[in-house]
């Protein structure tokens, strides 16, 4: 079997087709569009046309390009200007008003507008990543299949169809050590092997793009930024298990991803990468998009299949496993978006090369959505085994407003939090589980000293209680009861015995629930109890919220040692209940105070409790 690495044609796009064009690339992911990317893109188009750059003979030819998400959404709109023969430069936070000046000075006079160029943060964020799956995101136009092909796209599919048998593909994926990126971490090769074992008149391959974890958006960005990579991985997977059709189940909340996938499927069909007799081979596959209708539990594989069938998305007991009887009782293999994104890379570069990245049991890279109290929130891709410290401080730039790092919640409502003392622990499937967290889909929410961990646990429990499908009582009733206790604690009505009850219920729900939602729902409570028990105790015994987050426990008093006399609270108090001056520590008049919490929020020095 050929496992030699096939070099990716990384630079063909620049060389071929476009004779030394200046390219203005505008980031048009959801983040970019929200920041006004559409308007900036249009303005560039108009202005370039007006200035004559577009049509000028003998002058530089210029074109505008749209790209997908570049990851650093907090600096959007990001615009790359690449003049042939020079290194590309990136502008950050571009607005419509800045467009003419950039064109005038950079494109025409070739003197970049230095004051608007991306700062050190942007480069630090990018340079310390290892972008494999996201290699194309933010570089190519996601709506143009030629740009994907120019960067080596669909060469893996070609290789598979021309030189590899189904077993070859499965063996290669097994050897690479790729594990499911949706959370569980099940070896992808094993799953495909068992999927291939069952034969039937119809077999399905499903891409799980129901990214319901609040705080995660890597699947969305990948689908928006590089939809063809997902399709290619899926077609290869379909070939390996001999699937007759494929479904991509996308959340309803991601209209742009749906649009770009639809477009990509059309294009792939036109070029013969999809449909009947793909690339002249005997293999045929059709892929359909199914839009979810807003239910977190549909991320669970059996629930997802019921939802495609047009039913309520409620998980069922297993066995039979999906590989034996899944969608419409036919053999079905279901993988996550990012998992499929890894497949073309493995095929192109070989399992040997791929398995050198990462740790012993977790291979390759993982994309995380880094959000919360962090300077540079965004999408990052790092090799498995990177430490939390690297992600938070090197790439994320640390905590804003001089606050202190407190914890990071990994894996969303199914995961757990890790405190400061674990900053140097590596991130891979096994380490996270041993520490009480979980890879989950890859959300990485940083919280600082102002975040109350009890409130955080309550937040996740509230989410799980809302999203519980109601089929099995441990999850339906258990999550609601745990939520009641947590709510009581945050309102200052907690009792000593609550913690024991919580721990016991957590174990019961975990062992007795039917599906992953219930089994993992108590994780945030368990991990906060493990690492931040003192906060629970403070709420219960002393009726104090150490971070002063829980409004019901606020005392609204100024801590004189911390007050810098900046008067921010005084300016923001809507009822003028705070007095003080540049010489005098602020004082809150409790009779006037309406407990609106604004002073607490506006204070940058944690001087109000």
């Amino acid at each position, binding site marked *: 079997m050929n496992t030699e690495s096939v070099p990716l044609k990384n630079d063909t796009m620049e060389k071929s087709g476009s004779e030394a064009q200046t390219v203005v690339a505008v980031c048009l992911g*959801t*983040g970019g*569009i*929200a*920041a006004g990317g559409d308007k900036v893109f249009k303005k560039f188009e108009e202005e370039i046309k007006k200035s004559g750059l577009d049509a000028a003979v003998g002058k530089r030819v210029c074109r505008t390009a749209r790209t997908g998400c570049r*990851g*650093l*959404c*907090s600096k*959007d709109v990001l615009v790359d200007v690449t003049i042939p023969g020079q290194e590309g430069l990136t502008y950050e936070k571009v607005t419509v008003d800045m467009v003419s000046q950039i064109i005038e000075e950079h494109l025409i006079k070739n003197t970049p507008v230095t004051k608007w160029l991306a700062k050190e943060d942007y480069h630090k964020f990018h340079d310390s990543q290892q972008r494999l799956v996201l290699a194309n995101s933010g570089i190519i136009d996601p709506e143009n299949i030629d740009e994907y092909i120019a960067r080596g796209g669909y060469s893996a599919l070609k290789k598979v169809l021309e030189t590899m048998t189904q077993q070859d593909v499965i063996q290669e994926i097994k050897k690479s050590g790729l594990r499911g990126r949706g959370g569980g971490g099940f070896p992808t090769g094993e799953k495909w092997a068992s999927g291939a074992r069952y034969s039937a008149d119809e077999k399905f391959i499903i891409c799980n793009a129901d*990214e*319901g*974890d*609040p*705080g*995660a*958006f890597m699947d*969305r960005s990948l689908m928006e930024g590089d939809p063809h990579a997902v399709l290619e991985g899926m077609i290869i997977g379909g070939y390996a298990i001999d699937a007759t059709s494929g479904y991509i189940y996308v*959340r*309803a*909340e*991601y*209209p742009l991803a749906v649009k770009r996938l639809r477009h990509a499927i059309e294009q792939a069909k036109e070029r013969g990468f999809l449909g009947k007799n793909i690339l002249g081979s005997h293999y045929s596959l059709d892929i359909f998009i*199914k*839009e*979810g*209708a*807003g*239910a*977190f539990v549909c991320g669970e594989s059996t629930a997802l299949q019921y*939802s*495609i*069938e*047009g*039913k*309520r*998305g*409620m998980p069922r007991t297993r066995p039979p496993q999906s590989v034996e009887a899944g969608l*419409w009782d036919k053999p079905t293999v279901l993988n996550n978006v990012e998992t499929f994104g890894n497949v073309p890379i493995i095929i192109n570069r070989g399992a040997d090369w791929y398995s050198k990245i990462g740790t012993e049991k977790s291979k390759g890279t993982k994309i995380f*959505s880094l*959000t*919360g*109290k962090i300077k540079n*929130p*965004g*999408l990052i891709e790092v090799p498995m085994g990177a430490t939390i410290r690297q992600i938070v401080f090197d790439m994320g730039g640390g905590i804003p407003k001089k606050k202190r790092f407190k914890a990071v*919640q990994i894996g*969303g409502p199914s995961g757990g939090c890790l405190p400061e003392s674990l900053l140097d622990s590596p991130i891979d499937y096994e380490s996270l589980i041993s520490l009480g967290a979980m890879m989950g889909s890859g*959300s990485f*929410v940083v*919280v600082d000293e102002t*975040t109350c961990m009890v409130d*955080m646990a309550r*937040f*996740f429990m509230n*989410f799980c209680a*809302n*999203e519980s*499908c109601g089929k099995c009582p441990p999850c339906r009733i258990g999550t609601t009861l745990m939520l009641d206790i947590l709510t009581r604690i945050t309102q200052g009505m907690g009792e000593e015995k609550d913690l024991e009850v919580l721990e016991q219920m957590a174990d019961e729900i975990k062992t007795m629930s039917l599906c992953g939602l219930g089994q993992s729902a108590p994780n945030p409570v368990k991990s906060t109890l493990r690492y931040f028990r003192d906060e629970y105790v403070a709420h219960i015994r002393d009726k104090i919220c150490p971070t002063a987050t829980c409004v019901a426990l606020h005392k609204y008093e100024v801590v004189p040692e911390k007050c810098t006399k900046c008067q921010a609270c005084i300016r923001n108090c809507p009822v003028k209940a705070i007095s003080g001056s540049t010489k005098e520590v602020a004082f809150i008049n409790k009779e006037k105070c309406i407990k609106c919490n604004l002073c607490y*929020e506006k204070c940058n020095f944690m001087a109000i409790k």
Partner: protein
Amino acid sequence: MKTTNEKPVADGTIDLSKMEKIFGKYKNVKGALIPILQFVQTEYGYLPEPVVDFISERLNISVNEIIGVATFYAQFHLKPRGYHIIKVCCGTACHVKNAKALSSKVHEKLKININETTEDKLFTFEEVSCLGACGIAPVVMIDEDIHGELSPDKLNDVLGKYEKPGVQKN
């Protein structure tokens, strides 16, 4: 479902002819119920009772089952909603960046609670679990537009723009 003050479309005037297009598209397609309900939701803004009856008849699925599906998913609504839909994101990233204050702002400004519609039927206020735009948290989605890095004051301005008469969706 029928109450006196909810009569933007009286039963007799619901145009069922729009449905033929979608039934044609999903003829002989397995698992068509959800896409059809999604079509109805976009087209009518909610799932009107006569339409549900009609679907039941045509697909040969009981009304009971259709309502079962419709109430399971957050996307479907059995009551008419406002012209603009405000979705305040309550995902983790938005939560730690005080999305609660945004919800309070909507409540304060429009005098409606979660899942309620203003009297003039201009706005409906909802909270959603995550919009996946965590990089620019906290966010609010109005119709299909995402507004990021909001503060209560900024949200106030954004809402103001939609309040003007004649603001069309997108």
